[in-house]
C-alpha cells in the first residue's frame, strides 16, 4: 500500500515537472535550449569582461567561470521563481488532498533538468581548456544533493512568506543580484583576502559553487571542512523551511 503510494507520488512529481516545462517553454521554438541561453550569454559577457577588459589572469577562464556558473544558475533560477510557486499554481494548491510542498520539489527538480542539460557542454568546455575527467566527478551527485536541500529550504521560505508579504519576491530579486557578486563565480575566492574567507565559508552557496569548480575544472575533491559546514547549514535551512511551511500550510490555502 505504501509502496503504491510512493510510486504514485513519483508519478505526480514526474507529471508536474513535465507540466512545468510545458508552461515555461510552450510556444517557444528553442524550448529547453532557453534554460542554457542565460548562463551561456552570461558566460560570454563575463569572459569578455575579465579576459579582455579587466584581465584577471586566470588560466582556462571560460571553463573556470562556467564550472561555477552552472550550479549557481540552478540556485538562482529556483529562487527567482520561488515567490510565485504557490500564488501561481492556485489550481494545484486548492486541489483536494494535494500537498503544495510538492510544487516546491517540482520547481527544484525542473530547474535541475536545466542544469543537467548544461553538464555535457560544461564537460566539453573543460576538456577544451585541458581539464581532465577524474574520479572526483563521482562526488558530484552528493554535491547536488546538498545544493538541492539548500534550494528546497530557501524556496519553501520564499514561497511561503510571499503568500503573506508580496515584497518578499522583490527582496529576493535584489538579494540574488547582490549575492551573485558576493559569490566566487567569476573570480577566485582566495584573492579576496583573509577576512573575506569567512564570508565564503559561511555562505553555503559560495562553498558549493567552489566545490563544484574543484571537482569539474580542477578534477580534485573539495576541502572537507568547508563542505561539512555548508552541508550542515543546508540541512538546517531545509529543516527550517519545511517547519515554517508546515506551520503556515493551512493559512496558505486560506489566503490563496
Amino acid at each position, binding site marked *: 500500500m505504501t509502496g503504491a503510494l510512493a510510486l504514485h507520488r513519483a508519478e505526480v512529481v514526474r507529471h*508536474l515537472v513535465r*507540466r512545468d516545462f*510545458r*508552461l515555461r517553454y*510552450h510556444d517557444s521554438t528553442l524550448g529547453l535550449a532557453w534554460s542554457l541561453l542565460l548562463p551561456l550569454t552570461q558566460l560570454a559577457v563575463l569572459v569578455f569582461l575579465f579576459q579582455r577588459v579587466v584581465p584577471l589572469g586566470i588560466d582556462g577562464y571560460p571553463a573556470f567561470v562556467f564550472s561555477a556558473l552552472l550550479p549557481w544558475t540552478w540556485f538562482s533560477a529556483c529562487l527567482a521563481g520561488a515567490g510565485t510557486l504557490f500564488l501561481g499554481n492556485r489550481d494545484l494548491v486548492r486541489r*483536494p488532498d494535494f500537498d503544495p510542498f510538492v510544487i516546491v520539489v517540482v520547481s527544484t527538480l525542473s530547474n535541475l533538468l536545466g542544469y543537467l542539460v548544461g553538464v555535457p557542454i560544461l564537460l566539453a568546455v573543460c576538456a577544451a581548456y585541458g581539464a581532465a575527467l577524474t574520479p572526483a566527478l563521482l562526488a558530484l551527485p552528493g554535491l547536488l544533493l546538498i545544493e538541492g536541500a539548500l534550494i528546497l529550504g530557501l524556496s519553501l521560505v520564499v514561497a511561503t512568506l510571499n503568500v503573506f508579504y508580496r515584497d518578499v519576491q522583490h527582496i529576493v530579486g535584489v538579494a540574488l543580484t547582490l549575492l551573485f557578486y558576493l559569490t566566487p563565480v567569476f573570480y577566485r575566492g582566495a584573492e579576496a583576502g583573509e577576512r573575506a574567507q569567512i564570508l565564503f565559508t559561511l555562505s553555503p552557496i559560495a562553498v558549493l559553487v567552489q566545490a563544484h569548480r574543484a571537482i569539474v575544472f580542477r578534477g580534485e575533491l573539495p576541502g572537507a571542512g568547508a563542505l561539512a559546514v555548508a552541508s550542515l547549514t543546508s540541512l538546517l535551512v531545509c529543516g527550517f523551511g519545511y517547519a515554517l511551511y508546515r506551520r503556515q500550510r493551512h493559512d496558505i490555502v486560506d489566503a490563496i
Partner: protein
Amino acid sequence: MAVVIAVEGVTKRFRVRSNRPRTLRESASQWLSGRLGDIDTVTALEDVSFTVERGESLGIVGHNGAGKSTLLRLLCGVGLPTMGRINRSGHVSGLLELGGAFHLDLSGRDNVVTAGVLSGLTEREARARVGAVAAFAELDDVIDHPVRTYSSGMYLRLAFSVALQFEPEILVIDEVLAVGDSRFQEKCLEHVRRLRAAGSTLVVASHIPEQIKSLCDEVLVLEDGRVAARDEPERALEHYFELMNARTARRAKAIGGQATTSEPSEGTRSGTQEVTVDAVRVTAGDGRERAVRGGEAVTIELDYRFAQPLPDFGLSLGVYSAAHVKCWEVMLPSAVARFGPLGDHGTIRCTMPGLPLLPGRYYVNVGVYPPDCDFVYDYHWQMHPLTVVSVTEGVAGVSGVVALEPAWSLTAAAQAGRRTGDG
C-alpha cells in the same frame, strides 16, 4: 453502513485583520509599536457535527454566508478546521468555487491529465481518459486550446467533466449546478445519479430546492455557521424556507418597512418590498384578460419596480393548482443576465405558446429575490388566478392537472385457456 465522512465539532474561523499588514514594512512597524493590528475573526462554522455514510447523498442548504462553501472546502481537505476534526475515507473529487480549477495557460488536455494524475491515475491512464472527458464536456475540437480561450460555459463544462469522469468515491459539489445551460445540467445530474447508483457518496450544496430534492436522501440546513436541522429533503427545505421568511421579516424591520405579510383579497403577499411586483396580468391569445382554453397561448406580464436602487433581482414564476400542486415553475437567478439593464421599473413578459392544463382554477405565483436568494423582496402566493376552461365539452373521467392527448389501442392476446386446452 460504513461512515465515510465524520465531522466532529468543527469550527472554522478566519482571521480578518482590519488593518492587516500588506507589506513587511507595515508588519514591522506594527510589531515595533507593539500592536499587531486589530485581529477580527470571522466565524464561518461553529461546532458543526455530522456523518455521511457510504453511498449516501447529503444536500446542504443555507443562506449566503451560512458557511456552505467553507464546509465543503474543509470536507475536501482544502484548509484545516480551527477546532474539531474531519475524518474522511476514500478519494474525494471536489467542484468548489469555479475560479482556479485549471491553469489558464495550459490546454484543456494538459489540465485534464493533471487532474487525472492528481486523482490517482498514472499519466498514461489519464491521457487515455482525455477523449472521454472532452466528449462529455462537448469540447472535442478545442481540447488542445489553452483554457484561457474558453468561455465561462466551456470552462464549467470541463470542470464538471473532470470532476465526474475520474470516478470519485466521494463527490463534493458546491452550487455550480446552478450555472450552465439546462441541457448540460441535466446531463450532469444524470451522471451524478449514475455515480450514486454505483455507490459513490455525494455532498452537494445548492440553492435550487428541486435539485436538492432529486439528488439527496437527507438535507443539512446551515444557518449562520451552525447546523439548524438535518432531515429528509421535504421537511428540511420547509425548515429552510421558514428561516428564510424569518430573515425576510427581520430585514424588513431593519430597513424600516411596514408589515411584510399582507393579506390581499386573495392569497398572501410577503417580502421586504425593496423590489415590488405591482401588477400581474394573465392574458389569453387575443390579449384579453379572461379564462383561457386548454392548449391556448397565454402571456403572463408582471410590472416590477425598484423601491431601492438595487442592481439586479432573481425571479420565480410558477403555475400552481388551487390545491397548491406545483404544475410548473421556473427560477431565473439574475434578471440582468436574462434581460439586460432593468431600469427603475418595467414589465417582464412570459409567453407560453400553449398551456397544456386540464380545465380548472390555477394561480400564477411570482416572486422577486436578491440574486443569492437569501430572503424575499416580494412574493405573490395564490394571488393571481388563471382559469382554464375546456374546449371540447365533457371529456368524461379525466382528472389531474396536465392535458395529455392519449391515443388508445388494444392488442389482445389469444385466450390462455383455449391454447393450452388441447395439450
